């Protein structure tokens, strides 16, 4: 079972985390630090995005900055499950969306794309289909002006908007300048043609799509992807909302492969969790 594997990996990850803490407690100060460290927030498996490097990529792109962290491990698990969902023909075009805004879909899309490009050595294209509030360019430290909106409105050529990222194997199409009619643009046949064209040149197309409930963009794009991953913000998104979003995808004849639970917090401190 997927979940069983996840928890197994999580357990291993915990054990890995503990070891260096014990090893570091060589001096008294270090021991004291280690002791207090366990009381510090965030605890357990949470990741602290510290500083940008010279690429200017947002520190939250964990798959890039800390490929060995438990968080990156989770992206790897996501990748594995994605392939496992259809082993003979893994989905090429994948949409990452959510029910509401701010659930973490953009970060998940970026981290998934980074993992696919870096670890699996695939040719990955990350498309920011959120024409309203596209953020991929900001996070990846790329210019916004040239992007998908331009291509769909006929102002730019497709080859002109694909930007190479600092990560090998990962190309990005930004959202571009915000248009006045994003849903109409995305609904054009041109979008489908564009995706079909891009599928020829890349192993995977990862689309970051606006939230389903607030705007129709997601429903418009849903049938174009082979699989849709619904990002759920833990302790925040209500069940009814998720069910409604799923219903909207079904209505649009899209296919949900599964969910990604984001922003998961492990509230029980390590020193207690050990005994449970």
């Amino acid at each position, binding site marked *: 079972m*997927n979940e069983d594997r996840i928890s197994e990996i999580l357990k291993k990850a915990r054990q890995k985390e503990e070891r260096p803490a014990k090893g570091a407690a060589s001096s008294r100060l270090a021991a004291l630090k280690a002791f207090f460290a366990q009381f510090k927030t965030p605890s357990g498996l949470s990741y602290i995005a510290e500083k940008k490097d010279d690429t200017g990529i947002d520190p939250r792109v964990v798959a890039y900055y800390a490929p060995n962290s438990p968080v990156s491990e989770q992206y790897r698990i996501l990748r594995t499950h994605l392939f496992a969902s259809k082993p003979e023909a893994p989905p090429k075009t994948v949409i990452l969306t959510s029910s509401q805004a701010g659930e973490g879909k953009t970060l998940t899309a970026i981290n998934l794309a980074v993992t696919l490009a870096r670890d699996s050595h695939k040719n990955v294209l990350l498309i920011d289909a959120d024409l309203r509030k596209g953020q991929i360019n900001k996070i990846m430290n790329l210019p916004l002006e040239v992007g998908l909106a331009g291509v769909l409105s006929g102002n730019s050529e497709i080859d002109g908007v694909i930007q190479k990222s600092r990560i090998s194997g990962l190309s990005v199409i930004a959202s571009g300048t915000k248009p006045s009619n994003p849903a109409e643009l995305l609904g054009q046949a041109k979008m489908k043609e564009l995706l079909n064209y891009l599928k020829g040149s890349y192993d995977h197309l990862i689309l970051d799509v606006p939230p389903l409930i607030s705007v129709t963009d997601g429903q418009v794009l849903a049938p174009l992807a082979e699989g849709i991953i619904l990002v759920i913000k833990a302790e925040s998104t209500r069940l009814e909302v998720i069910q409604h979003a799923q219903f909207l995808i079904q209505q649009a004849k899209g296919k949900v492969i599964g969910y990604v639970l984001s922003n998961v917090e492990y509230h029980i401190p390590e020193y207690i969790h050990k005994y449970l």
Partner: protein
Amino acid sequence: MPITQMKVSLKDYVQVIFRRRWLFIIPFITVFATATLGSFLLPRVYHSYTTILVTEERIISPLIGDLAVSTAVKERLNALTEEILSWNSLVELVKKVGLAEKVKSQPEFENLLLGIRKKVKVDMKGHDIIQISYLGENPRQVQQVAAVLTNIFIERNIQSITEEASSAIQFIENQLAIYKKKLEGSERALKEFKEKYQAELPGELNVNLGRLVDFQSELLKVNLDLEDAMRTKRLLERQLSGEEQIVIAEVTRIQNPLVAQLTEHLVGLKMQLNTLMVDARETHPLVQELRREIDDIETQITLEKEKTISEETSALNPVYQELEQQFRTVELKIDSLESRQQALKALEEDYQARVQSIPAQEQQLAELTRDTRVNEGIYSMLLQRLEAAKISQRLETSEKGTKFKVLNEARLSLKPIKPNKIKISFLGLFVGTLLGFAAVFVREFTDHSISSIEDAKVLLDLPVLASIPRIFTPREIQSQRLKQGLLLTVVGLIFFAIIVVVILSKILT
């Protein structure tokens, strides 16, 4: 997510608590700190009490146990508690202790009394120990009130015992007067009745019956005599009618021989008749036949006599005279018998009535006797009780009666009994914890969001592909630390405040 929908383990509960720690911490600290601080700020209440041993003389009491005037200590206690808490007692208390010095208006005074009433407690400790306690904020005053209350209690108790006995005696005396009158009345009625029906009372029944029988047999005898006399009278009448008053003294003639013959026969017949008449009636056929024969013969004699011419000389008939003499005697006898008969009849009727009237009188007598007896009984019982009441009055007021011994004088309380700070703090701790848990679980049950893979597994129909831990930015870490720091500061401040209050309260006392 509602945790009821899943298999719940201890870990899940711990998870819930940690996830919603703020919801727990805030009510917990609020309640606990309020209770702890409050316990120091609450007014101190001091307690003073007296214990009184009540002894009742056990040896004598059983004698009067079932009489009207003995009351148990416990029963009396209820009445006394009420009495102590009565308006008059409290006013007396307030005056003696001087509690109303600052009171200006009547409503204020009434509130003061109501307040005292609530703070006084009368308790039974075992069956013969009474504790009177008083609570208040001024220890010296509390002691004073407890002492005065005890005095009032004992005074009132002794007074009430005496009053009880006196009122019982008074009551019995009243009743005695009433029953004395009743008894006298019924005795008088009985006496009058007996005088009125002296000869008809049940005891006289045999005498009367005997007399009645005597009279009746005598009457019978008189009747018989009377009838006898009447018969003799009738016979004499007839004989007289058959005799001439004047008879021919001398008849010179040649006697018709037939006449002599007939006369002879007639005499024979008459003698026969007379013999018969002794015990036969007129209607007897033999008598009738004899009479007829006599009549015939007499007719023949008359006819034969006419045939003879005779010369006669008249003279008084001696037979006639003798018969007449006899007749008069019989008539006199009849008269006397008749009057005797009358008298006897009257007597018989009288006695008959006497004998018949006895049951009614008997009943009346029974009623009168019963009334008298009942009144007598009640009167003598009341007399007994009066004596018993007098005894118990003497007993109660004497040394052998109920005694009150103060075992514990009211003492000056040095430590307040309230507020119990530790108890209140623990209560605050307990209630705070409970409230915190309640808040956490209420929130948990009403929260419909997905919080873990386990939730998602149960509630969603598609697989969870990954569970990404929260990625913190340095700014988020900072704000979280700020939040924690703030909490620590608040907690620290609260404890500091508690310590300050404790120290201040120590200094003030």
